[in-house]
């Protein structure tokens, strides 16, 4: 088959909503985009363990502790799953981690914000996982088979996380004045960054067009963002939380909530490394990775020894 025929076949698969599988031919740019997006997703799951891990030791009840630990484990599990999915595209985990450490691979901006109080654990589950679900449900129909299947699997757990996060907010809004204040403060700090999780507005999103054509991305940033806003504003009001946006208004003619202006300068600042925790998150990952080197080397040396011994047993 000529390159051209391969491309035609690839395109017709995309048109017919068939999934692209690891062994299928794909254009280099498609492979590159997939690697970029999948590894970024994997890294996000893993870096996201840091702000939540920050509260495991201080979780206020045994139940809360168990739920939070289990949630963080889910996220780490998503990381593992997504690293393997990315490996099907011909890159290994070590290389992906290398790229992360060199700043060539990104992770979700949202984790560059600090988890300052226990209410942040509620806000992260409710808003951050809530935003992630909207995005990931849409990605269940993405064109790359392993990614699509991963999203189907992961979404079930994410909706648990979202409910558990909301439950923390509900409990605190039913609690003491100090707890209510803590919950509102978390809402104030996490609302706008959560909206930015969907990426820049459609008219200046550089990756969107090609990704939509390849059906890697199925719906635009703005559509997804609006879906999240509509479901979340009602949840906030229901428990007495104020959305920190004086321009927020229900638009009767569209049936959607209109929001004020998103501060995209802040978004770009954080993307460019100037968020509150960019340096801390990456430095932590690098430090832990380096400190663990001797363990990985020991495990490898042991495994090699074992294989050698087994071989010797067979030959003697």
């Amino acid at each position: 088959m000529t390159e051209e025929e391969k491309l035609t076949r690839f395109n017709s698969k995309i048109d017919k909503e068939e999934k692209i599988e690891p062994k299928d031919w794909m254009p280099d740019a498609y492979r590159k985009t997939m690697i970029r997006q999948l590894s970024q997703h994997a890294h996000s799951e893993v870096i996201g363990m840091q702000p939540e891990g920050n509260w495991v030791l201080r979780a206020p009840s045994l139940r809360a502790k168990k739920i939070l630990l289990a949630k963080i484990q889910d996220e780490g599990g998503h990381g593992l799953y997504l690293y393997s999915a990315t490996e099907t595209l011909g890159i290994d985990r070590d290389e992906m981690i290398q790229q992360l450490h060199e700043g060539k691979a990104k992770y979700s901006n949202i984790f560059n914000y600090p988890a300052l109080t226990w209410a942040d654990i509620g806000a992260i589950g409710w808003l951050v996982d809530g935003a992630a679900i909207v995005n990931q449900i849409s990605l269940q129909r993405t064109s790359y088979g392993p990614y699509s299947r991963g999203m189907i699997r992961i979404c079930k757990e994410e909706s648990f996380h979202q409910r558990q996060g909301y439950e923390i907010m509900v409990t605190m809004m039913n609690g003491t004045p100090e707890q209510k204040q803590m919950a509102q403060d978390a809402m104030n700090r996490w609302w706008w960054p959560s909206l930015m999780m969907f990426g820049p507005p459609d008219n200046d999103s550089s990756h969107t067009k090609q990704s939509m054509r390849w059906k890697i991305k199925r719906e635009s940033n703005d559509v997804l963002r609006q879906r999240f806003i509509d479901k979340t504003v009602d949840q906030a009001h229901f428990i007495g939380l104020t959305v920190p946006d004086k321009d927020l208004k229900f638009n009767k003619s569209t049936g959607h909530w209109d929001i004020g202006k998103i501060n995209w300068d802040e978004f770009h600042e954080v993307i460019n490394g100037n968020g509150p925790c960019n340096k801390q998150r990456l430095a932590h990952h690098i430090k832990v990775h380096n400190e663990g080197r001797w363990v990985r080397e020991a495990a490898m040396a042991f495994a090699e020894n074992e294989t050698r011994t087994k071989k010797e047993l067979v030959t003697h």
Partner: protein
Amino acid sequence: MSTMNTKEALYNFCLRLGDNNLILGQRLAEWCSNGPILEEDLAMTNLSLDHFGQAEFMYEYAAELEGKNRTADDIAYLRNERGYFNSLITEQPNGDFAFTMMKQLLYSTFAKYLYETLSASSDKRLSELAARALKEIKYHLRHSSEWVIRLGNGTEESRIRAQQALNELWWYTADMFVVNETDKELIKAQIITDLSGLYPKWKSSVEETLKLANLTIPAHGHMYKGGYDGNHTEHLGHILCELQYLQRAYPGAKW
């Protein structure tokens, strides 16, 4: 002379079991986002999760025995340093990965034999709790044994680190087998057996693993004791600071 009645002794014993789990669970949770590889990060928080679950069962029973309308959380979060009865080894800092795995090996071997005998206890609740915990602890033991053997036979560095861990932790092992007033009352009531009797089994099991790991038990030193009587190392207070922070800062708040 003992001033404890059987119910009080059983309450204290449940605290001991709960505290061992709570404090070790808290230590293991410190590994969250700090593991040497993602798989082990998750494995250690998984062990931690098991320990918190076991602690909760034990405290629930303790709360019932106490009969003062307190919850498992009240018991877990609202005591002071001297009221925690965990063994000293569980509160020792994590150190490096070798240190944590060695700690897990030494403790899990003990816990396995402990839960085995307790699962035959005449106290039905205690025997059920023990049987349930035994399943998990067997997995913990397998996981830590495998790692200790791997590290002992891995690289020169990993062997040295594992040996250093053993050299330091060994002196906290006798503390797990201390028999105090609580034990005496429960032995008299035929609820538990003399748990110092588990020592020979524990020792030979640990020796077997350490032999496979090419590691040597240190010869001379002082055995630290006192955890079961609330005489701790300085580490415990710091663990409690973090553990209890919100409960102490906002008394009476529900989370």
